[in-house]
Every structure is written in C-alpha cells, then in structure tokens.
C-alpha cells in the first residue's frame, strides 16, 4: 500500500530520475529527508540535487525563481504551508509576474504541506490556496487522493507556469492506495468523486473525505449526494461544477479554509452568475470558523468542517 506522503516522495523521485533540470531545495530536505520525510533518501539517491536551505523562505523561493529563469525545474518545500507567508513576496510578485512582464516562464513548484491536523495549532494548520489563487499567474493544486498526489505533482513539474502544490498533511499517513496511477486527468479538470442526484457538494483536499463520509450518512436516509473534487483550485473547472448542479439543482461548497474570499465563495459566485437558473434553492457553503486554527483537539475538531457538520448542512440544503 502506498500512502499519500509516499506518493509525493515517489513523484519527486521520478521527476529527479527523468529530468536533469529538477532539483529539490528546502529546509531539512537533504540527508534528513524532510520534516515529514517527503524527500527521504532522495539526497542519497541523487547526489548534489537535493539540498538543505537556511531558514529563509524568501531566499528559497527567490532562488527557485532565478534557477527557473536559467532553465531548471526546482521543487521547493515550505516546511509548513503557513511559513510560505515569509516567502509570499517572491511567490506573488516575482514568480507570478515573470511571464506576463518578460515573456519568460517561471516553472517552479512550491510544495505547501497544508491544512489542519490535531494539535497543529494556529501556525502549522493553514490552508493557503485561496490566497495564492487570487494572484494572476499561479496554478494552485489541491490533490485529495494518493493517485492525484503522485500524478499532479509530476504534472506540476512539467508545467511551465509556477505551481503552488497544496498537499494536505491530514492525508499524509492514513490515505492509502494499492498502486500508482497509470494516467492522470488534465490540469484544471475536476473529478466526479461520487455520483448522485439530490445535491452537489463541491470540495477539495481533506474535505473530500469528510464529504464522502457525509454522503454515506445521507445515503442511509435515501439521499444521493454528488461530490465534485476540484483537484485544482486554479484553474477551476467551472464546467464540471455547473454540469453537476444542472443534475441536482442544489449546491453545498465545503472548504477547510476561512470563509472570507475563499474557494467556496468563488464557486458559489460562479454558479450564481453563470448557472443561476440551474439552482432550485440558494447555494450554501461550509467553511472553517473565522478564527485562527485552535490547538486543542476538542476545539480543532469543530473548527473545521467534519463529516457530521457537512451532513447537517446538506440536510438543511435538502430541507430534511
């Protein structure tokens, strides 16, 4: 069985073995193998191509930008997504603007170990996808399955545009698959994770699995909920979302992010303006609470959406 985390490690191993332009740079990614072991043994396997950086997120990403201009394909790891704010300037003002300004693309991959885990607290739990998706020029990926963690990371390395790769820490160890995928959907294509007829849940990342559990709960009451896994937040697959809403007439957006200006808000905005006539009732959304992510497991477990709160929201949407 291959875990989500091992899939990320194997994708980097494959990228390093197949493309001499690829190198890994980040804090503790060298001989130590990374804080989560996502780069375990790669420094030994690829001498001189996997190395430790100082505690300097700005420099790590800035160096990746320079290396990309010179034709390399750097993959950089932020130890936690939360710390990418210290490299924010290089991401949004340098990497993201380079192609538009100069015509030279910036093929970097910034890996963000994202989202909440029990005990993570305010600074090791954040979901940054909407923040980066706001800026022109950045592809923002949020794989929710082992297969996508592997296939999409390889796609990210192959893309000429900068990619913010939001890999979810909650999925690292317990999400497992029998093997690696032979193929992967195109970049920017959402996936119908569960077919249904009564309502659509649009979600991404770890919330896919909470939503799937909620759907099982609702199925016991005879309701079939369709679930769309966005996979890539930007570009966003509006067509697949609208097609699902056309089938169900009801929309619930579930996201682990904070509510203001997030992915859920964006999806509802698009469906409301482009598919208003498809909706039987007002669209709903469920986000994390609008506070920093709490430390204590009892607080954390109700801070973010869960299978239970998603099922409750879906029942309201279905007027059960």
């Amino acid at each position: 069985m291959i875990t989500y985390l091992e899939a990320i490690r194997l994708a980097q191993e494959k990228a390093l073995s197949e493309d001499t332009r690829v190198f890994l740079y980040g804090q503790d990614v060298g001989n130590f193998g990374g804080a989560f072991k996502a780069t375990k043994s790669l420094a030994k396997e690829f001498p001189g191509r996997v190395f430790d950086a100082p505690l300097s997120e700005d420099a790590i990403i800035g160096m990746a930008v320079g290396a990309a201009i010179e034709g390399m394909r750097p993959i950089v790891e932020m130890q936690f997504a939360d710390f990418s704010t210290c490299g924010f300037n290089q991401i949004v003002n340098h990497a993201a603007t380079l192609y538009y300004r100069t015509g030279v693309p910036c093929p970097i991959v910034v890996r963000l170990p994202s989202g909440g885990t029990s005990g993570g607290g305010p600074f090791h739990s954040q979901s940054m996808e909407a923040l980066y998706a706001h800026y022109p020029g950045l592809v923002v990926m949020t794989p929710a399955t082992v297969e996508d963690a592997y296939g999409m990371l390889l796609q990210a390395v192959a893309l000429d545009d900068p990619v913010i790769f939001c890999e979810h820490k909650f999925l690292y160890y317990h999400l497992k698959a029998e093997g690696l995928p032979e193929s992967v959907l195109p970049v920017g294509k959402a996936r119908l994770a569960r077919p249904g007829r009564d309502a659509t849940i649009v979600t991404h990342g770890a919330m896919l699995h909470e939503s799937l559990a909620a759907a099982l709960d609702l199925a016991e009451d005879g309701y079939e909920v369709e679930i769309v896994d966005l996979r890539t937040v930007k570009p966003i697959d509006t067509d697949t979302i609208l097609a699902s809403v056309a089938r169900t007439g009801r929309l619930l957006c579930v996201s682990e992010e904070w509510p203001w200006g997030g992915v859920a808000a964006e999806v509802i905005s698009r469906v409301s303006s482009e598919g208003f006539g498809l909706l039987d009732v007002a669209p709903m959304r469920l986000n994390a609470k609008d506070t920093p992510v709490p430390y204590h497991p009892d607080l954390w477990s109700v801070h973010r959406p869960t299978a239970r709160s998603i099922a409750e929201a879906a029942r309201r949407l279905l007027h059960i």
Partner: protein
Amino acid sequence: MPTQKADPPVTGADFIKAYRLMLVARVLEEKLASLYRAGAIKGGVFLGRGQEALSVSVGIHLHRGDIYAPLIRDQAGRMAFGDTVLDTLRTYLGSQLGPMRGRDGNIHRGRPREGYYAMISHLGAMIPAVAGALLARRLRGESGIVGATCIGDGGTSTGAFHEGLNAAAVEKLPLILVVANNQYAYSTPNARQFACADLLDKAVGYGVVGHKVDATNLEQCLATLRRAIGAARAGGGPQLVVGDLLRLVGHGEHDDGSYVDPALKASPVGRDCVLLAEERIISENWAPAAECAKWRQEAEQEVNATVDKVRREPGPDPEDDDWAAFSNSEFAEHYAGL
C-alpha cells in the same frame, strides 16, 4: 590573511571606455527628466545621477553569459552590460516594440534569457534570484561565470537582503552584491536606516569578502569592481562592495530632494563622478576637452534621434494584447469583460 597583489593600473583606455558609457547614461537620463517634465512619460522617472561611476564599473566587468540584475539607479551599468538607448526609451515611453511591451515600465526592464534580469520593485528580491541563477549554473556544471546585483543603503535593511546574501554565502556562490550608499532611502538618512558604523561591517557578519570604495572616483570603482568580480569568478564566493556617494537628484523626478543635508552636498561624497572623470581625462592628457565635448554631442545626437524614432512607434494595443499571465493560455480567467 594572504598578501594582496597590487591591482594592475586602470589604463586611460579603460577609463575612457567607462566614462563614455557614463556619459551616455547621464545624457539619456537628462533627456528622460525633460520628457518627464513635458508629460511624455506616463509613469515615474528614477535617475542614477551621481551613481554612474559605481554602476558602470559593475556592468563593464561582466561578460556575456554572466548574470546582471541592476536596480533603480543603474543606467550606466545597464549600458555597459549591453542594454541600449533604444530599449531604455522604448520601455520608458511604453513602445510595444520594447522588451517589456508596455506591460512594465521604466527601470523594471530586462531580457532574462540573456542574463539581464528585470527587477521587481520589492527591494532585495533580486539577490536570492541571482543566487538561484548561479546555483542553477553550478548544477549544470558551468563555472567561471558570476552574477552581480545592486542595492541601495535602504535595501540593506530588508529581509530579502539578509536572506539572499546569507544563502549565497552558505553556498559560496559567485555573487557580487554592490551597495550604493547614496545616503538617503527616498528621504530617510543613513542615521535612521542602520546602526552599524559602516555598511561594510555587514560583510564579516555574513562571512563574505567586503570591498569599500569612494564611488565618486571612477578609477577606484573600476579597480575595486574588477578585483571583486575577478575574485568571485575565481571561486572566492560572494563579494560585498560598498560604495559611498550622494544621490544628486530626488528619489524620482517628482521629488525635489529638499531634505538632503547641504553639508553632504558640499562634502567630498557630494561630488559629481561624471565631472570628476572628465577632469581626470583632461588632466591626464588622455583626451582633450574638445574630445570630451564631442563625445557628449554624439551621445546627445543618439539619444535625440532615438527619442524621435520611439515616439513614432506604436504603444500596446489593449485589443491585441493576449492578457496572458500564464504561459499556458488555457488557464486564463475571463471575467474582465470583452
């Protein structure tokens, strides 16, 4: 500490070559100022008056294949590295034919594929970018190349300066970081910018070689940058060059610089490096005064003719622009109206 060999002398020919580049930069910037006052430039104009000797000495010692990320006041260094009057004016005047195609302006220009990076406004950001470029060259097995970037006294206070120089030092990259201490960051004087006795003190803190230079003196600048760039090229790791000078203009042309201390203007640091260089050429009999005047005329002719040409060129057409922030055009959003 190893004994330092005496630098070979800067020859009259070296000096004149650098001076003529400084002169083109000076004349071009004088024209930019007048175009700005005439309202011909839509954005800001930020000039390098007083900084030409230090700046030119960086660009003139770089080779094809090296990396150069100039900053705001580096017109002279840009000319030395191979930028042109034409590209400069096309960028300032927003010609569609320029390297930035109207998408970015003034000093934010470059041709990254040619090792000539286009600065972003966030100070210090180019330091790690050049370090990363040098790392890439090393990974590809290239040696003997260097990367140079420039910053001001204000920029040394940024986190990016610290992170970039430190990371370059850890990797022992052939980076030359040139600090033009022009005494003011916009209106903020050195006393409100840093508390060390001299910015050169930072070199020891980062474990890099430091060089100090009187940046009003072209000969010193040429000799110092030749030494620093040569040391980086020879594997000596990052080199921090600190040049003292005075910004002889406002922060931009919108700023009269009325806050500049008159005592600084009257001090040696306030001297004009272009005038000093011309005096030196004449006093050394490297060229007569009439020859210097002819060089200035030639520069003026080139600049004026290029302005006339560029003003007839088309600006960017919003209808034709592909508005593409992604190189993969299918990723574009379409919510801005038709």
